[in-house]
């Protein structure tokens, strides 16, 4: 089959690889009908997540048709149409049973590597380094889906791929980001990063009853999209001081909740500041550039919540601990526990509360993945979200 493989920093190639086979009794094999490129894939592409190997198949947002099932998979039949959640989770350990699927205790056979870097290991993830399992991803024609009896959700009507594909990751991720804010009537929510994840966080904050939502980014085409598709207010951090503007907009209080939908590769409007952290990161003195999270903490209202869904890999520098501690802030985080949200969010899609296809800007063939990665990374051609068809 064809698959999009990581071949080095800033390099992916579509290669011919063997077809996947059942390895475990809880597996299913899925013939992929569509997959997507995620901001998380850019962290791999840019070389900031360690333990990638040449020829690793990328991709963790995908859906398709079941073509084979292992003996322990009683809930799926060959021919079923399924969306696959990106965290691989067993459904039986303590973490899974508490709904913390992305912290599954059994799905990472390489937990030892993750423990060295993070103390304890999170779950395995499709196409996301060897530290997180060494599982091939779904930017391919077929994928093996472990724990198919727990994760995938069956879509039994004709609703198009584009409306349900993002149940695999970014819609639940944005939703969880907003849910972690415990939004109460009158709350103002600010969202750093207006990529697809930020856009779903913004839309979800409205669904959960936020009074006002403010999106922050520097790309006008993304800010325009946010204004038009979600009705949020926007700030371009290259044109205004974000801290000043947020104070002004909330009459000095600051947003009640701040969502970081940027993660480890954030950018800074001031070239000197950017160069400082970029250099430290290049020399591996810190692994992550934390501009957005620094600003989100400083901006947040006293007693407010900072919700982190942007992905971080290791260590950050100059973390405003004093602001966090002295002002009674709450930090909530996590790779999304997608399994927990698929059913309720599918219901919301069916009810017409939201149509997730609003984020799509480009549709491409899987064989064009290399140019898709470049375009999405460099934000060319007003690129917002790319869907790949095998």
């Amino acid at each position: 089959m064809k698959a999009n493989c990581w071949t080095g920093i800033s390099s992916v190639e579509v290669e011919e690889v063997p077809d996947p086979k059942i390895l475990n009794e809880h597996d299913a094999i899925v013939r992929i009908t569509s997959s997507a490129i995620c901001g998380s894939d850019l962290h791999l592409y840019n070389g900031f997540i360690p333990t990638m190997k040449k020829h690793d198949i990328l991709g963790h947002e995908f859906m398709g048709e079941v073509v084979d099932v292992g003996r322990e998979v009683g809930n799926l039949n060959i021919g079923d149409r399924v969306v696959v959640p990106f965290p691989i989770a067993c459904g039986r350990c303590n973490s899974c049973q508490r709904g913390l699927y992305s912290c599954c205790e059994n799905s990472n056979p390489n937990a030892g590597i993750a423990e060295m870097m993070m103390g304890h290991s999170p779950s395995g993830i499709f196409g996301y380094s060897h530290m997180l399992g060494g599982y091939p991803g779904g930017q391919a024609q077929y994928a093996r889906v472990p724990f198919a009896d727990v994760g995938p959700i069956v879509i039994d009507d004709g609703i198009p791929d584009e409306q349900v594909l993002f149940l695999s990751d970014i819609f639940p991720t944005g939703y969880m980001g907003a849910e972690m804010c415990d939004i109460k009537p009158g709350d103002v929510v600010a969202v750093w990063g207006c990529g697809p994840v930020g856009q779903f966080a913004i839309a979800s904050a409205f669904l959960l009853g936020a009074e006002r939502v403010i999106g922050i980014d520097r790309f006008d085409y993304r800010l325009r999209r946010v204004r038009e598709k979600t009705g949020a207010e926007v700030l371009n951090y290259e044109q205004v001081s974000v801290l000043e503007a947020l104070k002004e907009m909330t009459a000095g209080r600051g947003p009640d909740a701040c969502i970081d939908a940027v993660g480890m590769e954030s950018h800074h409007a001031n070239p000197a500041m950017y160069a400082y952290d970029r250099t430290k990161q290049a020399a591996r003195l810190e692994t992550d550039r934390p501009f957005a999270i620094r600003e989100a903490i400083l901006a947040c209202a006293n007693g407010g919540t900072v919700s982190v869904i942007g992905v971080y890999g290791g260590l950050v520098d100059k973390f405003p601990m004093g602001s966090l501690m002295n002002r009674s802030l709450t930090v909530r985080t996590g790779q999304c526990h997608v399994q927990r949200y698929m059913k309720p969010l599918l219901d919301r899609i069916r009810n017409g509360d939201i149509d997730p296809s609003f984020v799509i800007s480009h549709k491409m063939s899987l064989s064009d993945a290399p140019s898709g990665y470049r375009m999405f990374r460099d934000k060319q051609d007003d690129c917002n979200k790319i869907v790949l068809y095998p």
Partner: protein
Amino acid sequence: MSKYDPTTERMAQTLGYVSLGLGASMTLAPRVVTTLAGVDDSALARLMTRVVGMRELMHAAGLLAGPPELVWTRVAGDAMDLPALLIAMGNRHGTRRLRAVLATAAVAGITAADVYTAWRTLSERRQGERGGVTADNVYTAMRRVQDRTSGSVGPKHVEAAVTVNRSPEESYQFWHDFSNLPRFMIHVDSVEPRGDGMLHWRAEEPLRHKRMEWDAQIVEDRPNELIAWRSVDGAVGPSMGAVHFDTAPGGRGTEVRMELDYPESPAGRVGMAVAKLAGEAPDQQARDDLRRFKQLIEIGEIVRSEGSPEGTHTRQLLRQRPAQPLPS
């Protein structure tokens, strides 16, 4: 009591972890490292990166398991790496050069930490004498390291623990059906009850892949709490083993603790360090075995990925396949 002040020990430990991190990234992702160092244009550099990575792992094993003086091995390594990097830097242009400069600066920083820590190990040993980094002192330190790393070490006691989402009854019963043990103990081929609480073990010796067989006697068996066994005289495997089952608090299942005693190991510290690097040290094995036990009892099978087709095994962390389907 240790002869070193805690700061020196901690610095040596920290450098051990630094070595581990460097070694792991150099052996697992040499391309990423060469790119960062601006030497990704040379095949030799990639090969050297792997070699130096293996050396870093040796430093790590030494510093994490041995005395702080082993930091001298790092100083020796730095003395090899810095000139190589300086030469590489001189031959590069543009952004490669910038990356090489940054990498060299980082290595120089670590070298400073190495030398300072090394100097502390000396000056603490020779209080009252003239300390400092003299050829004489380096030689004495190296000798001391040699003395300590050769020869035999005493019996080794290994402990590992895991929490499983099952009751103590289920956990005990699963374990007490000894035919289950080879399903999660990587090197064990079979465990056969031979009556009167005798167990006949067959296993593979990890590093040398030699087959071993021995008999052990169950010395204690308390249902849902404890199973303990002891090898009969002259046996080759662990001399004692025990597994404890305790109810975990708040409905979290069962805390399973395993203990193993290994007889005196003739391989000594160096042998142990080699086993550690290969992912085959007894404590690593015990942890791997318990993780596999957890997978088996919670989900009924060992979890495999394409990168680790054998499932959890520390040895495999260093030998990952690419994450793509296995050839048929």
